[in-house]
């Protein structure tokens, strides 16, 4: 777990990452009472938006390792690539786990969520968080500069959020674009939480979550091949 501890400490040393990845979501969880009570789906969509933004900052450490050559030094030691990636991603999703757990507790105790909805929301958010980290990992593997990766990510993130129905409902988009975001996980996450809110933890809800998880696996495979 040395790599995990090292990655976690490096994340903690970067205040921006933790501000975006933990502090802002926690403030949102505590402050947006009416949203969490009346339209929790919208709140969760906002949370995913923040996850996307902060995951890029948190996972960018892998890119840093690659740029400054640390990865070569790490690979000389008896550590496999899978082990290295897994522990870095684990460190990156720690803020997500904290905020999701906090939201679950707050939702159940303070925002009057049903137990089934609370568990479903926590599961869906956790799966989405893991896939988001995998997506950021995959994204960073295609870049050789941290700044270019970040700026391109900001542009693509806006596009993803638009096409996935996070910013506006997909029904508001032109015909062709309504389902173009299906190749990205936020699209299926939104569908999953809408299904959860309307019908509970049905088979369809689990299918959507499975799709999110499979997309995450795809990102890991693709990112792993890139470098």
């Amino acid at each position, binding site marked *: 777990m040395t790599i995990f501890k090292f990655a976690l400490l490096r994340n903690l040393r970067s205040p921006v990452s933790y501000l975006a990845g933990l502090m802002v979501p926690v403030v949102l969880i505590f402050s947006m009472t009416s949203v969490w009570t009346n339209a929790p789906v919208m709140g969760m969509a906002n949370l995913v938006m923040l996850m996307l933004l902060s995951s890029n900052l948190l996972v960018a450490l892998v890119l840093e390792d690659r740029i400054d050559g640390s990865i070569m030094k790490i690979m000389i030691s008896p550590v496999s690539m899978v082990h290295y990636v897994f522990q870095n991603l684990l460190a990156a999703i720690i803020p997500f786990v904290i905020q999701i757990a906090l939201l679950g507790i707050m939702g159940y105790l303070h925002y009057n969520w049903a137990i089934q909805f609370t568990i479903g929301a926590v599961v869906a958010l956790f799966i989405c968080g893991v896939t988001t980290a995998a997506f950021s990992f995959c994204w960073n593997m295609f870049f050789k500069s941290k700044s270019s990766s970040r700026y391109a990510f900001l542009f693509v993130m806006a596009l993803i959020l638009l096409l996935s129905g996070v910013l506006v409902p997909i029904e508001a988009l032109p015909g062709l674009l309504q*389902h*173009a975001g*299906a190749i990205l996980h936020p699209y299926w996450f939104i569908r999953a939480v809408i299904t959860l809110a309307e019908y509970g933890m049905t088979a369809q809800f689990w*299918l959507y979550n*499975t*799709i999110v998880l*499979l997309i995450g696996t795809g990102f890991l*495979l693709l990112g792993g*091949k890139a470098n």
Partner: protein
Amino acid sequence: MKFSPQTAFMIFSTAGLSLLFIDWLQTIDTMGFFLLLILGLMCLMRYRVKHIIIYKTIFADLLMVLVFFFSGGASTAQLAIGFVLFQGMYFGFFLLAVLPIVLVVFMDALSIVFIATAAAVGLVLHFWNKEHASRLQQRDYYSNKIYEMELMHTNLTHVLAKVEHMSILAERSRISADIHDNAGHEIVASYISLQTVGKIMDKNPEKALELFDKSLARLNVGIGKMRDAVHNLSAVTFMGVDSMGDICRNFTKVPVKFQSTGDMSGITVNIWHVLESLLKESLTNAVKHANPTYINVELDVTNHLIRLQIQNDGVTKKEPSVGSGLRNLRYRVVTVGGNLSIDKTDVYKLVCVIPNRKGSL
């Protein structure tokens, strides 16, 4: 990036998946996308994981597609069969070709055309990939051969340089021993006698004169031995161009005219050895096979090239047959970086060109 069968396969796979996604956009059914996702993941696994057993992933693809096809659970299943067939054909699972024949009754004409096209493209890419791999293997084989030859050339050059150096040391040692053992003793003895002559000259002039005569005689013997040592150095063997001239002069069966031009000082011992062997083999071959009336040997040395031309007017065979002697010599010429060519147009002409690496050894 070089356009290889693998690149083409990746492009076609991506295009196939995009086509399936566009087809899925017509229906937007979740199971259809799930199937698409599974196919894409299997593709990525084949691309990403090196030691994955390909037939297992293809089989998983096929099973998934057939389940969705017969259960009617996914709208994209028909076209997905084409995608699986494309992948299967590319990886050499030709038995999958029977699948569209079996399923023809369940599908519409457009899907059959799509599936057949996909399978054909996969098949073409498979054979292209096979040919590409074979070409790469061939290239590796020749590269390896060239590498081995260069290695042999380097080793041979180094060994010859060492042999040359050791020969010089041995010869020096022989000269030193000859002078020390033979001439040296006589000269030193004469020197001591002459010193004695100087000391007794006043007291006993007769004895001194007798000793002086003996010293002169010993000195004469010493000079004679030194002459013999020097004689042994130069007269025993001819070297280099003298040796080649000697070979030509001593060849009595046909008149051989030998001409040499240029500075021969930079030619190394190993190259002289090759040239001499070539000359001997050519002279023997000429008498054995061509029955010539004359043989001309020309050796031209420039700053960059050593050119040996051996020409005779004997009967020339038009068919290109090279005996084992010349074949070995050609190999030796190549190992010193040269080239050997034979021209039989009017007269028999053998030309050997070797780079002059003056001072490189």
